[in-house]
């Protein structure tokens, strides 16, 4: 059967909505569970219209209890359902943390493979929208650190759509981090494109430095690559997409070509994904590296008040500064060599 390819211009939020709709249509074991996802359509309107179309039995407004949302999803998964949970904001996932890391992540292992946990947990994450505290966090490293979970973060409407469909189809539990400040960004979405929650994408080719990032910072990194090109520096930008597993083969290929690595994420630096990527790439590509891997990240502070978030968040200039460091450009303000 020839599938009609249906490419539409959608915002990232609409792309997720359309992926949820497809999943609900195609598999009656899929159900959505979250706070305010029904009539309201979620605080970001991502589930808009789904309860009206699929009923409150499939699109369930949950009591305000994150552990309850995840824990009942575990029981539903035991029973053969494929729950898609929405955590309203990144900072509210912690009450559900125990159920995620101790139950969802481990039950397949604990039962020697007998029980599957095809649970998708959607989390709007990251800053840049001027929100109050607990509304701008990047908790992905906690989950990437947990064996048994898959952790992914799309950066554009197409990936948001196809990666979510792949996440829901996966028999493994998936933490699906949605870059909330990109919810309103439009892009072409082929709703029949196959999903990929394993592989990174090279989103800009370059020869001098590899810049690895994910989520909302991918757009910033692409801008940084354009700006650097004007100065004759060629940046290769990699959108990780999957944070567990990390597609190190793609990163390795790029670093072996460029010899330099910059990693950028919004999350705090200490024990973050950047540390893992730096260590793994160093293990794999030591002989190819012309400079130690450089991290450009949020600070090791709680997420600051929104008046300060522009300082906290890596922006184009901080990324370029990181690139300068990796290139040992003497003019770099934050060149750590200056400490010596």
């Amino acid at each position, binding site marked *: 059967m020839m599938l009609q390819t249906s490419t539409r211009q959608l915002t990232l939020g609409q792309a997720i909505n359309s992926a949820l709709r497809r999943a609900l249509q195609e598999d009656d074991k899929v*159900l959505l569970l979250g706070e305010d996802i029904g009539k309201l359509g979620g605080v970001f309107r991502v589930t808009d219209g789904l309860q009206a179309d699929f009923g409150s*039995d499939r699109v*369930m407004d*949950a*009591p305000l*209890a994150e*552990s*309850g949302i*995840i*824990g*009942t*999803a*575990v*029981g*539903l*998964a*035991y*029973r*053969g*359902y494929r*729950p898609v949970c929405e955590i309203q904001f990144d900072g509210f996932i912690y*009450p559900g943390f*125990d*159920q995620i890391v*101790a*139950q969802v992540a481990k*039950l*397949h*292992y*604990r*039962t*020697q*493979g*007998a*029980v*599957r946990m095809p649970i998708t947990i959607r989390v709007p994450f990251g800053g840049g929208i001027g929100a109050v505290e607990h509304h701008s966090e990047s908790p992905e490293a906690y989950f990437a650190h947990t*064996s*048994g979970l*898959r952790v992914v973060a799309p950066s554009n409407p197409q990936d948001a759509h196809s990666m979510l469909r792949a996440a829901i189809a*996966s*028999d*493994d539990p998936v933490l699906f981090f949605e870059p909330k400040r990109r919810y309103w960004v439009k892009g072409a979405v082929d709703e029949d494109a196959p999903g990929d929650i*394993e592989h990174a994408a090279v989103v800009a080719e370059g020869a001098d430095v590899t810049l690895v990032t994910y989520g909302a910072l991918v757009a910033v990194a692409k801008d940084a690559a354009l700006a650097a090109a004007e100065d004759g520096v060629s940046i290769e930008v990699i959108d990780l997409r999957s944070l*567990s*597993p*990390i*597609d*190190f*083969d793609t990163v390795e290929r790029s670093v072996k070509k460029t010899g330099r690595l910059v990693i950028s994420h919004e999350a705090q630096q200490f024990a973050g994904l950047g540390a893992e990527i730096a260590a793994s790439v160093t293990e794999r590509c030591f002989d190819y590296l012309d400079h130690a891997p450089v991290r450009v990240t949020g600070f090791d502070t709680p997420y600051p008040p929104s008046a300060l978030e522009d300082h906290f968040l890596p922006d184009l200039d901080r990324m370029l500064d990181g690139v300068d460091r990796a290139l040992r450009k003497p003019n770099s303000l934050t060149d750590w060599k200056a400490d010596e």
Partner: protein
Amino acid sequence: MPTTVSKDFRLTESHIRQEDVVQLVTPAGVRVANPTFDPWVEDVGPDQLASFYEDMVLVRRIDTEATALQRQGELGLWPPLLGQEAAQIGSARALRADDFAFTSYREHAVAWCRGVALPDLLRMWRGTSASGWNPYDVGVATPAIIIGAQTLHATGYALGCQKDGVDTIAIAYFGDGATSEGDVNEAMVFAASFQAPVIFFCENNQWAISEPVRVQARNHIADRAPGFGIPSLRVDGNDVLAVHAATRVALQRARSGGGPTFIEAVTYRMGPHTTSDDPTRYRDPDELATWQGRDPIARLGLLLQSLDVDVDALDRAVTTKADETARALRAGCLALTAPEPLSVFDNVYTGAHSWLDRQRSQYAAYLAQFDGEA
């Protein structure tokens, strides 16, 4: 199970007041009339009571043997159920094969009733595998060590049953300590909101390791559920017949769309919390002695005697069976060996995971270096 209990039974708070502990058999083995609950067990005759008796003796023996195996270094740990046999047998024997139980770590008798094979009871405690059985084979989830987590799983499972349009139910077993955990309270919120066909079965064994129940609750634990919109029962947890009746009431409510029920089975842990625990540090010997006087097995034996059952003959038959069971348990335990090393990487994910696969092959290569060494 012949359920002649399709009464139009409406469990309301006025029916069951907090002072009432449902008891159908006194510690002296005397059957007491209870117009509300008698109809729920009118079909339970001497034969079935004798089979409960057998179950209870067997699981006590399994428990004793497992404790001995731990003392002999064959198990890493064992949490004894001594004293809680009636609560577990009385409830689990009321379940249907398609029902699903979510337990904590102490419900060996529930697992036994569901048909878990003897060595499988020990796997986790011997450390040869993460859990002992396939949950779908026996209708018991893998035990939860995290206190209270399983109550949410039971609620979710029950929601699934409701969505499937079947009258299968889920039952969650947990302790008095667990009722302080957020998960148990969240489970009650979810169950009440969605009218999930779930039974919350709290074995109030008076202690959470060293903490007496009064650290968890000022009032009776059963009093908490009505606040969530869930009717509750307090039942004498050492009275197998009363527990059976109460569970049937809850099952009937759940199967007929009546929603969740909370049962507080008032019982006592007569042994230590686990084989690592020393209850003499925190527990008054007089308290233990009082509860030993309410032993669930002795009580049922006395009742059977009053029903003209030849308890001596029953005891002889059951003892023989218990001896065989203990032997089989021991043999099964000793036969459990460590799985092959690379299986540590199995079942983390359902399929490939490039990172983990790399670790597996690196470790395989590392291990291969030692091939051929003595």
